[in-house]
């Protein structure tokens, strides 16, 4: 197209056009076609990378393990097992709980940081943003290990508190517990909260805040009635960005969770490893996906309703 601009233009003008340029002319006329062409690379990757694996997963979830192989007769037994055996529901619930608390904690902790940079930093904002995302420059695994060192039995917190004389015995709940997983997730995903919240705060028109002040709102009411609702898109985006991946997180509970901190991601991994029940693993992955979608939709609906009431 780049080197055939003239036929295009002439086609547009309704002038007679050479045969070779019919395609380009068609392209030019049909907006939909152009759109699809533009999206083609993405669509291709989505199909190859998401749709096909997803279909394989769906198909596999209806199979049955048969020794080292699979019995491919379709059945919904795996889904029935997920429904009836308490271990799956319990792990699923625990995953949502841990990830939900971690999400709320992350957003609450990161909002003030984003707020500060958006409203009170006037020079070198980019430097501040980079500094806040600094933990992200190391690998996820290293960050999890770092927390293992901090929370450990002889870790930074325990030895610090002991040398200050606050405690006699190391605090054992710090490591190998759900708390440890929540703390680590909240830190590890902080950048995913700071950036979207910062962007939405930055976009707020400052004159709206002045108007609110002129009309008599104090700082708190102004925040609740103007700033917060206008930054909700960022908060919602941050919540999704954190909640969805952390629900299925594997490595954090594996290293820090201990027996009571295991999440559904660990159980799915076991199905593909030692338990050797790939169809069950596929089923759990799909059920998890379903629940995440359901929770996400509910969250979206709730925040929308809330926003309407606020504004």
């Amino acid at each position, binding site marked *: 197209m780049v080197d055939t601009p003239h036929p295009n233009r002439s086609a547009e003008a309704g002038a007679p056009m050479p045969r070779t340029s019919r395609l380009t002319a068609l392209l030019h006329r049909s907006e939909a076609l152009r759109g699809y062409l533009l999206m083609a690379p993405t669509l291709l990757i989505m199909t190859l990378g998401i749709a096909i694996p997803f279909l394989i997963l769906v198909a596999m979830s209806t199979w049955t393990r048969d020794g080292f192989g699979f019995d491919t007769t379709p059945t919904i037994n795996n889904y029935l097992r997920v429904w009836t055996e308490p271990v799956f529901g319990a792990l699923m619930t625990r995953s949502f709980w841990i990830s939900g608390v971690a999400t709320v904690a992350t957003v609450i902790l990161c909002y003030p940081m984003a707020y500060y940079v958006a409203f009170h930093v006037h020079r070198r904002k980019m430097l501040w943003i980079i500094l806040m995302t600094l933990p992200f420059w190391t690998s996820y695994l290293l960050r999890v290990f770092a927390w293992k060192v901090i929370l450990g*039995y002889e870790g930074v917190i325990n030895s610090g508190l002991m040398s200050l004389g606050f405690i006699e015995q*190391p605090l*054992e709940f710090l490591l190998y517990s759900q708390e440890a997983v929540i703390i680590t997730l909240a830190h590890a995903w902080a950048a995913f909260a700071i950036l979207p919240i910062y962007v939405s705060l930055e976009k707020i028109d400052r004159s709206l805040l002045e108007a609110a002040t002129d009309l008599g709102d104090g700082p708190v009411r102004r925040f609740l009635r103007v700033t917060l609702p206008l930054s909700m898109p960022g908060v919602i985006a941050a919540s999704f960005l954190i909640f969805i991946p952390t629900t299925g997180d594997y490595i954090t509970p*594996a*290293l820090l969770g201990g027996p009571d901190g*295991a999440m559904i991601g660990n159980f799915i991994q076991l199905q593909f490893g030692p*338990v*050797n029940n790939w169809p069950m693993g596929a089923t759990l992955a799909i059920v998890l996906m379903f629940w995440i979608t359901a929770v996400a939709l509910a969250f979206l609906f709730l925040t929308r309703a809330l926003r309407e009431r606020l504004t």
Partner: protein
Amino acid sequence: MDVLDQLGAVREGKLSRRRFIKELTAAGVAVTMVPAGARRAMAASEDQATFFTWGGYDIPELFQPYQAKNGELPNFSIFGGSEEALTKMRGGFVVDVSHPCNQALPRWVATGLFQPIETARLSNWADVMPEIVALPGNDAGSGNVWMAPFDWGQTSVTYRTDIFELEGEESWDMLWDQRYGGRLGSLSAGADAWWCGAIKAGVDFADIATEEAFEKIAAVMREQRPLIRVYTDDTTTLEQALASGELVAAMTWNSSASLLQAEGVPVKFAKPKEGALTWVCGAVIHKDAPNLDRAYDVIDSLLSVETGQFMINDYGYGHSNAKSFEAFDEATLQGLGLSKNPLEILQAGHFQVPQTQEWETRMNETFEQIKAGF
């Protein structure tokens, strides 16, 4: 499942020095990260054999003869549990040599992924102790074997002699001791833990596949679960926790106790009155091994006397080469809980017995549910 079993193997694997690497390994992450890192670091060339093994066996000390002959170390790929390894190879991962244990051997062979080892090609074969070659399912016909035995040892309780107050004799009850609830650790693979549970429940390994035994073992594992602070495949985690006093007793292999003692930590590898769990592990060759000659070099290196002396002295494991023991006197070996006669040790404990795939799967499934709290 399969395979996991090898607990034994697992046990051995742990090494101690590369703790960081091990931790990664245990995490399962290592499976991808360590080999990539290690390979690059060693400038591993394509034509060296690849040894797919437990963390802790990827050290130069075990491959001096190989290095002398081929100029470089073999490439390593690490697994955290042997069934994880088998699952990966069934999925198409091709290596030259891997490292299962006696309990998993028949199931590994049944997958058809391995080729018989021509013993005539191994220069150290004549010195290998015949008792541990004659394992169930190991005969590949015409004097060849599926697995060349390399290391043997025990799974038992390593405990802090200064913290754990022993009541009477050393026993598996130590890992069920309510007084130390929350300060006990366990290997997480059913291939170790379930069998230790069987010893604790008083189940004879000959009956381990019966329904009654299954229920009995599940019951003791459930009883133990609230007392356990951490289940892990990573021996370094257990060793560090024992060293700091976070754990007072843990289920481990020989090497954890040996390594901790070498660092001056007051620990002891218990000789439970009920008997320890015992196992033999060894090398197998993949059927499509791309570097077959070097695969034999890897195995020959593992079977060599130099390697054997390191295994005995530093890791506290038994070795399969009878000559490796000549450098040690009886008293030293006894102190390590070893003997020149492997059967003396293996039969004094409870030697693992191969089970069917169905049993292995069911056991793993049940044990994972128990660990999750059900």
